[in-house]
């Protein structure tokens, strides 16, 4: 049984912390579906979100091994309880005179925003959980997609579930 888990990590904002964590995943053959990281409101600390898959035993090892890293302050498996997950996608599509109207409508349906325009392209910004972004890509004429970039998921617990030191 291999489930998708979304793991949040508070880590000292030090050079090398990211490679230590990424290295742990590759050395122990754990999966990484996506990894995002940026400093928190306290600049001495970064918050990382890792999406991974594995059996219960593997996920238990992942959280234990992460906790063992000297720079890691806290680790939470968000998927253990209610949580929210968002990902940002920027997608550049062909939008010549013919396609403009359609493309705009499609973006509206998915609550995307056109954030850059040229003679023959639109760049659309879209946030949501991963499946929504997938659905948007599916809904487009595949030939119209020129470029996509996705951030990977960020996650946060619902309500009073708070991860901080």
């Amino acid at each position, binding site marked *: 049984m291999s489930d998708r888990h979304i793991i949040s990590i508070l880590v000292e904002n030090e050079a090398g912390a990211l490679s230590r964590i990424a290295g742990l995943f590759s050395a122990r053959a754990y999966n990484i579906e996506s990894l995002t990281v940026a400093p928190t409101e306290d600049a001495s600390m970064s918050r990382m979100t890792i999406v991974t898959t594995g059996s219960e035993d593997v996920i238990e090892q992942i959280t234990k091994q992460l906790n063992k890293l000297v*720079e890691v302050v806290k680790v939470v498996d968000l998927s253990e309880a209610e949580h929210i997950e968002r990902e940002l996608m920027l997608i550049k599509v062909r939008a010549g005179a013919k396609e403009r109207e359609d493309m705009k409508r499609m973006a509206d349906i998915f609550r995307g925003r056109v954030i850059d325009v040229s003679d023959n392209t639109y760049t659309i910004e879209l946030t949501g959980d991963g499946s929504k972004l997938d659905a948007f890509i599916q809904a487009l004429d595949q030939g119209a997609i020129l470029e996509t970039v996705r951030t990977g998921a960020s996650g946060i617990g619902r309500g009073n579930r708070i991860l901080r030191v």
Partner: protein
Amino acid sequence: MTLTGAEIVVRCLQEEGVEYVFGYPGGAVLFIYDELFKQDKVKHVLVRHEQGAAHAADGYSRASDKVGVCLVTSGPGVTNAVTGIATAYMDSIPMVVLTGQVPTHAIGLDAFQEVDTVGITRPCVKHNILVKNVKDLAISIKKAFYLAKTGRPGPVLVDIPKDVTAASCEFEYPESVAMRSYSPVRKGHAGQIKKAAQLLLEAKRPMIYTGGGVVLSDAAPLLAEFVRLLGFPCTSTLMGLGGYPATDPLFLGMLGMHGTYQANMAMQHCDVLLAVGARFDDRVIGNPAHFAQNPRKIIHVDIDPSSISKRVKVDVPIVGHVPDVLLELIKLVQAAPQRPDPTALKAWWAQIELWRSKDCLRYDRASKIIKPQFVIEKLYEVTGGDAFVTSDVGQHQMWAAQFYKFDKPKRWINSGGLGTMGFGLPAAMGVQLANPGATVVCVTGESSIQMCLQELSTCKQYRLPIKIVNLNNKYMGMVRQWQEFFHGNRYSESYMDALPDFVKLAEGYGHRGVLVDKPADVEPALRDAFRRKDELVFMDFVTDPTENVYPMVPGGKGISEMILAEEL
């Protein structure tokens, strides 16, 4: 007080009470060597290869309660040391490694003797730090010592660019370190400990399985007290030998791939298993699925949560410092109204004695060719069981573990986790320096000893009177054994052709060498060697090239599926 980075390094070592640094100089560490030259509190031991520096520092740690320190230059100095660092890491040995690095402005430019030291060593250290500013130097070294010896110990590396050793800043050695991201537990969970005590008291076929954690945490006296209080059988891993007195009747010998029949059988058939400072390694429990076939309750005490339920699911996990947890367990058992069921325990012991009566370590004592086991038995006798014994890796290592009965912790020094050939001799140097005047033996094989042979020169320089017991079977014996058992007797590249004359070799380094080729000469040769308190003696024993290590659990098999000597 304003000091240069190099002065700070040496001051920090002095503040930490470091007596010896094992090292090798080079461009990136010249300022540090210059400061070492100007003082005499911290003594430097000049090895002949950086791998030797790391192993010597490691051996020094293993045989003392201090943290071994090694110092190497950038680039090849570091890469040479990596094997030694990984060896210490796999066995959780506290060690501080100081490495020189190219100047900060040159980092990343493929400078002369530049390697990404922090990157290369990341997977084989507990932690590592690149110091980019001299202001961070003292605190980084303080952290290194703190991290190395607390929690689950391990090597910590501090990488110091040359310009940082030349720059200056105000120096004050921090009294302590506080890290919000690092706080190892000590006390175990009281509720879990209670559950554990209850399970043990109700056990019908109990077993206590102990590992290197007992030795590392100085828990041996408490372990002995606890085991004797219950009267339960006790076994130990390769790393745990000496954690419980081997001559005690409650001790079943080592378990695992080359463990005793009684230890492995009891492990498989017990109904309550207490694991203390051990990690259910693949060389210990064999095939985990086979191990799980017999139902049993498992209690696991370890300082490292990630060691628990990693390979084997446990019922009562207790994360804590081993001595603290054992003390609690002792109190609970002493206070408990009930005792373990005496009838059940008697029956269990009767079964164990039956297993023990197989005499699984039997070998041909009438042999005309020297049997390696015989050499170790004589070594045990001649040294009164009181030597520090280091070993290399192979058959000789297993025979030393099986036949030298360690009654005290920190006497058996070997590379269990990484299995590093070449470890024995340099480790013995560290052991001897940590224990001046003590008897130190290196049990090795003709192949292993050649991997760090150059350290014979270091032994001469520092007058280290190590006794080398070379079990010379002309083969990479352990490789040959596997080829005999599992590869149709095809001895592919395991014969050591063109061996040197070890006697002349030892003499060439200024030591004494002796060749022993008859069983009757074994004991006299040993007696003579150990009488020479101030000399290194290299004893080259010509042993039976066909001898195998028994029992043996073949890879992938269950722990009770042993090949025994008599079956062949």
